C-alpha cells in the first residue's frame, strides 16, 4: 500500500469519536488544550506522542469522560461505545486488597454482574493476558509487568470497542516493555478493538501504531499526523526495517519541533 492509499483508507473508516474545537482550561488558568480536533477511527491504534505537559493524557481523560471539556464538543458514533470504554492507567491502579480475579471482575461487578455470571468473561480476559493461573494472587505478589497485564485484562473484560492506554508501559524495564508491546499487538489482532495509546517513546509509537499524532506543548497543537500501514508485520524484523526507521525519523523530527515549540 502506498502512503496515499493508507491515508485514504484510514480516512474513510468511520470515526468512533470526534473531538471538535475541544479546549480544556483548569481552574488555575492553565490551558491544557485549545481548539483541538481529532477523529479516532474504528480499528486504528492511534498513538498520541508529545513532550510532557502537551495535553496527551488530557485528551484521553476527556474522551473517557474523566474530565469535561471547557470548550468544543466530543461526538460519539453511538452512546454504547461511549459507555463502554476500557482504560489502562499509567500505574496499574489495582485494588491492593483484592485478588487478580476480583480486580478484573470489578468493572462487571460495578455493572451489576454476579460473580458466577461474570466468571467466564473474567477468566477469558485473564487467559488473554496469561494470568489465569495467578487469579487468586494479590497485586503485591505480582511483578510490575504482571500487574500491568492485570490492568489490561480489567480493561478488556467489558469487551469495549475503544481502549485508552495512558503510558501503560512507561515504568517497566525494556525487556518487559517489548514483551508487553508484542502481547498488546496480539490482543489487538485477536480482539480488534480500537486503541488510543499515549507514550513518550517514538520507538514504541512506531512499533504499535497505525497512526501517530504528534502534539505540541502549545495547548496540544498537532505537529504531524503519521499514517502507518496496518498490514505491516510487527515483529523483530520490523524493528530493524527501513520503514520503521523512516517512521521513527519522521516522529522524532516532529517531536523535536514539538519540544522546541515548548521551550520559551
Amino acid at each position: 500500500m502506498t502512503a496515499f492509499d493508507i491515508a485514504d483508507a484510514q480516512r474513510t473508516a468511520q470515526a468512533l469519536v470526534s473531538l471538535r474545537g475541544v479546549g480544556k482550561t483548569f481552574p488555575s488558568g492553565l490551558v491544557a488544550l485549545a481548539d483541538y480536533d481529532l477523529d479516532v477511527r474504528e480499528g486504528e491504534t492511534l498513538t498520541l506522542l508529545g513532550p510532557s505537559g502537551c495535553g496527551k493524557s488530557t485528551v484521553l481523560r476527556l474522551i473517557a469522560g474523566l474530565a469535561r471539556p471547557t470548550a468544543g464538543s466530543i461526538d460519539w458514533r453511538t452512546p454504547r461505545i461511549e459507555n463502554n470504554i476500557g482504560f489502562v492507567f499509567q500505574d496499574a491502579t489495582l485494588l491492593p486488597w483484592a485478588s487478580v480475579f476480583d480486580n478484573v471482575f470489578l468493572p462487571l461487578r460495578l455493572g451489576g454482574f454476579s460473580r458466577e455470571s461474570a466468571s467466564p468473561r473474567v477468566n477469558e480476559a485473564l487467559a488473554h493476558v496469561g494470568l489465569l493461573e495467578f487469579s487468586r494472587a494479590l497485586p503485591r505478589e505480582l511483578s510490575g509487568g504482571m500487574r500491568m497485564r492485570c490492568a489490561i485484562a480489567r480493561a478488556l473484560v467489558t469487551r469495549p470497542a475503544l481502549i485508552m492506554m495512558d503510558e501503560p508501559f512507561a515504568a517497566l524495564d525494556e525487556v518487559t516493555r517489548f514483551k508487553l508491546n508484542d502481547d498488546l499487538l496480539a490482543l489487538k489482532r485477536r480482539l480488534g478493538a480500537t486503541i488510543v495509546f499515549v507514550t513518550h517513546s517514538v520507538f514504541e509509537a512506531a512499533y504499535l501504531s497505525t497512526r501517530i499524532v504528534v502534539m505540541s506543548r502549545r495547548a496540544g497543537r498537532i505537529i504531524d499526523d503519521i499514517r502507518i500501514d496496518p498490514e505491516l508485520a510487527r515483529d523483530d524484523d520490523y524493528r530493524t526495517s527501513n520503514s520503521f526507521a523512516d517512521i521513527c525519523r519522521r516522529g522524532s523530527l516532529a517531536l523535536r519541533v514539538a519540544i522546541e515549540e515548548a521551550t520559551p
Partner: protein
Amino acid sequence: MIPKRQAIPWRDIGVPLSVFLATLALWEGLVRWKNIPTYILPAPSVILATLIQDRELLFSSLLVTLGVTFEAFVIATVCGVALALLIAQSKWLERALLPFAIALQVTPIIAIAPLLLVYLQPGNAVLVCAFLVAFFPILSNTSLGLASVDFGLRDLFDLYHASPWQRLIYLRLPSALPQFLTGLRIGGGLALVGAIVAELAAGASGQGTGLAYRIVEAGFRLDIPRMFAALALISLSGLAIYGALAALSHVLLRGWHESARAQDA
C-alpha cells in the same frame, strides 16, 4: 506465590521480654539490697504475692473496668464510624460536626469527669468518659481513611459509573481500613484510660468498684503493694487490648498493606 504465614520473630517478643525481666530483677535486687520498706517501694515479688492474695477483689474490679472499657469502645467504634461516614458524604456536615468532636477531644477528660458525675449515675459517667476519649481517634482516623482514596482508583470507579453505594463498599471502606484500624488501636487504649480516669474521679467521691477505685482505696490505707498490684493489672490490660487490636489489624491487612508487610519483613 502467596507467602506462608511467618512465625513471630524472636526480636518481637524476646527482646522486650528480656528487658522487662531484667528491670524486674534489678528492681527486686535494689529493694532487697537497700532494705526499702514496702510502704515506700514494694519489691516485684511482694506485688505478685499481693496479686495472688487479693485476687478475688482485684480481678472482680478488673472485670468491672474492662466491662466498661469494652462497652465504651464498642459504642465509640459504632458512633465514630457512623459519624465519619456522614462527614465523608458532605463537607457541610463536616463543618457542622467536626468542631464539636474536636472540642470534646481537646478538653481534658479529668475536667469533664466530675461534671458528668454530677449529672449521671457513676457507672454511666464512667462509661461516657471512656466513650468520649475513645471516640475521637476512631472518628478522625476513619474520616482520614475515607478521604484518602487513591486518585487513580477514583478515576477507575468514575470510568465504570459506580454508584455512591458501590464506591463506599468496594473502594472507600477497604481504603479506609488501615486508618480505621489505627484509630481502633489508639481508641482501645484510650477507652481504658478514660474508664480509669472517670473511676478515679468517682472513687474520690466514694463511689465505684472498678480497678482505679481499688487504687484510691489502697492509697487511703497506705496499702502500697495493692496499689502497685492494681496498677500492674491496668498496664497488662492496656497491653492486652493493644495487642489484640494490633493482631486484628495484622490479620486484616496482612498481604496487601504496607504497615502489615513492614512487620512481616
